[in-house]
């Protein structure tokens, strides 16, 4: 048949552009730092995940350089065949110790961890009895994709609603073989956190597995940034603690911390891990140094929270609605999409970089600017950002 096999590429893209749903890629000219150069202009960065500014930490940069010099630029293979170096194992040992778990495992990215591990944890029994994943309705896209790859039923509970989670558990209890509860630790749109203590309690009661995606909580929540489990004093008790090195740790890579059994299982079953090349030595060296920095330099986490507290308080006193956030992710609620876009455009003109989050990512009347705090921002930087937000917020009638 005569057909144009690639016509859809342009058609689909044009539709996204028409509906204003396409991503406008912005280019950083230089490092991701509290002060960035973006498309030729100096800006205060308020939307990176580099919470602790560790990507610019001299010890971590040095860790990458040293590892590259000693081990080379690449790792030569997937982890399972010939791509595991003593360096990779050292990262996993150190990480487990830092997280207070028996063992840990490094994935290529956080997405690879969710997409590779979740589908393996569930399936169906020899008698045809299925498993079920019960998931918070606001979980991250990588969880959703991991769940999609899983051969099981999936139930959803209202965001953070423990009464509803219990009802779903009660319904599922008799019908299913395994039950897996999955939640984000910190929710990236609102900056609120999962009631992990409640989830753990219910999981114990119903014999369910627990899985926390703590991408935005690693290096941020809990003592010394040990994560959401440590925040709830549950380290070592959550079955799967998943996180990432790409945000507060300042490097890249997914991580899973849990029991030795879990890691042995994942080593052998998790396809994204088995079938992608392992991290280059420079990445592993930087990861190792990042764990060391978190363990020995508590000031970064402390600065992050002091900045967060100050910024939130000031935003509120200016009159902004910051939603339910209890973390360094602070949404500035704007109402309808057009207002959020206008505010973002205006502050970018004034040298503050933060982007709008609009429908359908959030509800129609809940459009917002999402800000993410950085430990490397000074009080002066924050005051400048606040002044710009206040001026433009007033002009646009948001406050």
């Amino acid at each position, binding site marked *: 048949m005569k057909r144009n096999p690639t016509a859809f590429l342009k058609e689909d893209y044009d539709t996204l552009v028409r509906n204003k749903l396409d991503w406008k890629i912005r280019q950083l000219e230089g490092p991701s730092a509290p002060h960035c150069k973006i498309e030729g202009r100096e800006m205060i960065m308020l939307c990176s995940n580099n919470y602790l500014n560790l990507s610019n930490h001299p010890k971590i940069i040095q860790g990458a350089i040293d590892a590259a010099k000693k081990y080379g630029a690449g790792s030569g293979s997937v982890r399972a065949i010939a791509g595991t170096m003593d360096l990779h194992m050292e990262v996993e040992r150190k990480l487990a110790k830092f997280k207070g778990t028996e063992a840990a495992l490094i994935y290529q990215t956080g997405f690879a961890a969710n997409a590779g591990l979740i589908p393996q944890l569930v399936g169906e029994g020899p008698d045809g009895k299925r498993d079920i994943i019960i998931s918070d309705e606001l979980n991250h*896209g990588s969880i959703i994709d991991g769940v999609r790859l899983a051969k099981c039923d*999936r*139930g959803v*509970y209202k965001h953070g609603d423990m009464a*509803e989670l219990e*009802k*779903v558990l009660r319904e599922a209890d008799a019908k299913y073989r395994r039950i897996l509860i999955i939640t984000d630790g910190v929710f990236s749109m609102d900056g609120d956190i999962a009631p992990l203590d409640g989830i753990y309690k219910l999981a114990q009661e119903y014999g369910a597995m627990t899985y926390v995606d703590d991408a935005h909580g690693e290096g941020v929540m809990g003592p010394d940034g040990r994560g959401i489990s440590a925040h709830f004093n549950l380290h070592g008790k959550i079955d799967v603690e998943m996180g990432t090195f790409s945000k507060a740790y300042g490097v890249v890579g997914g991580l899973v911390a849990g029991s030795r059994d879990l890691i042995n299982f994942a080593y052998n079953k998790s396809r994204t891990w088995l079938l992608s090349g392992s991290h280059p030595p420079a990445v592993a060296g930087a990861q190792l140094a990042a764990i060391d920095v978190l363990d020995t330099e508590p000031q970064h986490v402390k600065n992050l929270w002091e900045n967060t507290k100050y910024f939130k308080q000031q935003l509120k006193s200016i009159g902004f609605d910051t939603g339910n956030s209890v973390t360094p992710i602070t949404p500035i609620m704007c109402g309808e999409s057009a207002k959020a876009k206008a505010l973002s455009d205006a502050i970018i003109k004034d040298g503050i970089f933060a982007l709008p989050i609009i429908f359908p990512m959030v509800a129609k009347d809940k459009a917002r600017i999402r800000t993410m705090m950085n430990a490397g921002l000074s009080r002066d930087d924050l005051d400048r950002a606040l002044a710009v937000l206040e001026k433009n917020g007033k002009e646009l009638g948001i406050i």
Partner: protein
Amino acid sequence: MGGRAGLKGTDGVVEKAKALGAKPVSPHRAEETLNALALLCGGANKTRAEFLTCSGKMGAEELAAAGIAHEIVFDAPEETSAADTIAACKRFAKLGVDLIVFAGGDGTARDVWNAVGKSVPIFGIPSGVKMHSGIFGTTPEAVAKALHECIGGELSIGEAEIMDIDEEAYRRGEWKIRMFGTCLSLVEPMYVQQGKMLFEEQSDEQAKEDIAEHVCEEINLNKELLWILGPGGTLEAVGKRLGIDKTLLGVDAFAGGKQIGKDLNEKELLALLDNYKSNKARVVVSPIGAQGFIFGRGNLQISAQLIRRVGLENVVVVATPGKLAATPVLRVDTGNKKMDALFAKKGYMLAVIGYRALKLVKIDSMKL
């Protein structure tokens, strides 16, 4: 307009209603809607839509009162009837309108649907006595908001049920609501998360396909069971996927890989269950109409007795996310207080909302 006169609508009894002092509420409701729409658009001349209407009280007066420019394309007589509604809607459809908005209740909804079928989406301003059809906004303000969003391209077109009282049963003294068919109407678009923070619109049709895939897989996994499939568009999609001729309005049965009953009544269903080798069955139903009834509206064949025999745990509820967005509760009215109480006690059900996707939905014990 019959409500205040104690009538169940005015189908065929308009004169009686007027004699009892009933006054039409539709014009007032229509005006309220149009005024609210003008307000939302920032002025009666800023609606960004073209309005075609009928002369006099059938639309032109209400639009004029709200100050909205319009074109009269149908001449209505002084005293109007259902025949005029049908003729006017046929004219609208012929002119290629994008949406027909009417003020009325289930009776008017049926007239409009009879005129245009599924060729034009229809949307109702609630001003009747019976409003079981799934095409009414809850208030004139809600209708205005939906119209505003529709003009702005923010709403999708989805399927909804046309429901009304069963007149034959009513003449026998029974109050039965039945389903007459499905039409197109306005629905909230549903977005599904595609990857990291990227969403894509999912149509109601796609959701039905996904639900059908799930149900068919269950049917194949449980071949020893008798499957009783209720009415409605979602179950019709299941039938299509099974490759059978599923009736839209009736209750059908499937077992051992084939259709073994079509448009069955209560007696036939009970007999089928009695004679079925395992005596085990599952009943698949979807919420029907505007109020979310899974039993008691349009599927009275699935009686309390049948549900008891099958067992509550073997009732499977399927519903598209779009439907649950409009009516986030399930209601039960089996005509048997004990059975209704069992559902009320259960409090909620895990409804199938997509392929392998379940959502907890509240069972509202309140009767409507």
